[in-house]
């Protein structure tokens, strides 16, 4: 437990000192959303129809941006050896790193999303479904992304490779997240879709660290 919290604290402290990543991710998120009105025209009706999709796709791409740094700096300077030799199993360390990643990437996306909903004229009644959906889906994105990040350690073009690996795996949260927003505006409500998102995250919690841990061991070998 001491080791688990120590690793999260360490990563958060690094993020605070270095500052770069949160700004990069948020900046990309905002810019990606703002590009759409320029691309397809600013009519509110059109934007409102695709608002949920725009925000979710932008959130996905922003999350992918910061993934290649998840393990890379530790891998490069020998810190990963020490994490592998820690008192906690490597899988728990992956969970700690994913948690820190979510706190510095996913959570800011969730916080900023209501503001961005204004830019794409999302129906305010759908806002809770959007925020809760992102809250439930972004941890799954951090966890699944950790698998891809671990697999591409030491590869020749890790950033591009990572994107290719992770995007098919991100389709389920994307589909359920946008469906939740649209369903919340209709009679059926968003509950079923939000539960599916929660189920994805619950499933990823034990399974993703297993796969990522195995991938890290391959990278260290």
């Amino acid at each position, binding site marked *: 437990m001491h080791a688990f919290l120590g690793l999260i604290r*360490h990563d958060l402290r690094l993020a605070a000192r270095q500052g770069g990543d949160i700004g990069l991710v948020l900046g990309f998120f905002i810019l990606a959303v703002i590009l759409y009105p320029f691309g397809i025209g600013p009519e509110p009706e059109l934007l409102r129809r695709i608002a949920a999709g725009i925000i979710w796709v932008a959130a996905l791409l922003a999350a992918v941006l910061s993934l290649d740094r998840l393990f890379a700096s530790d891998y490069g300077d*020998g*810190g990963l050896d020490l994490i592998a*030799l820690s*008192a906690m*199993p490597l899988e728990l360390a992956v969970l700690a790193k994913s948690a820190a990643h979510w706190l510095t990437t996913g959570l800011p996306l969730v916080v900023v999303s209501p503001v961005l909903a204004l830019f794409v004229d999302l129906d305010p009644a759908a806002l809770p479904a959007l925020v809760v959906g992102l809250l439930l889906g972004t941890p799954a994105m951090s966890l699944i992304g950790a698998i891809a990040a671990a697999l591409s350690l030491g590869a020749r073009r890790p950033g591009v490779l990572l994107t290719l690996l992770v995007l098919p795996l991100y389709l389920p949260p994307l589909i359920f997240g946008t469906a939740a927003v649209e369903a919340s505006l209709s009679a059926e409500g968003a509950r079923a879709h939000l539960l599916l998102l929660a189920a994805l995250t619950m499933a990823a919690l034990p399974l993703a660290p297993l796969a990522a841990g195995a991938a890290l061991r391959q990278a260290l070998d």
Partner: protein
Amino acid sequence: MSLFPETAELVGENLACRRGERLVFRGLECRLPPGGTLVVTGPNGSGKSSLLRLLATLLVPAAGRLLWNGAPVARDPAGYRGAIHYVGHLDGVKPALTPREMLGFWTALRGAEHPAIDAALAMFGLEGVADWPCRWLSAGQRRRLALARLIAAPAPIWLLDEPSAALDGDGEARLAAVIAAHRDAGGSVAVATHQPLAITGAMSLALDDFAAPAAELLAV
């Protein structure tokens, strides 16, 4: 007086190591008793770093096994990890953090409740830079910091890969003193090095004795 359990002997049986498609060494036997020192020598590419990583369980051997306290390491990997310190080529130092914070993190990773951080910094002459960001430290100072974690939390078995690289004379002297004190306390040390270390009574392990002949390299 020994700080560490009597039976903390490390034994390597018939170890083989594969890097990529290359068999680096095989049939290697080694023994590290409490209070003992093993100096691993060999030309570049003979697998000195690989052997140390193997002893640290960072590498899985292609054949053979490690025994600790008479039992295979594979049976209690967490317990074994708690008994070793590994200092590799790379220092693992983050430029944005201070030495004090790095030692705090490394000892937290080991689950050490009361780390001796100030003692460790003093032992390696880093008290003056303890609260500077590590990007201001020289290569030698970062090396000292990496070695300082040997003191910050105790462990009986030390696995050191080229520990005196980048160290000046004062640093090497401190390292020798620390190793001597560790051995006197019953701990053991395995060192891979090119440079002669002032260690008496060390066993030598020459890795080119265990290089694989070319025929075995073709094994798919």
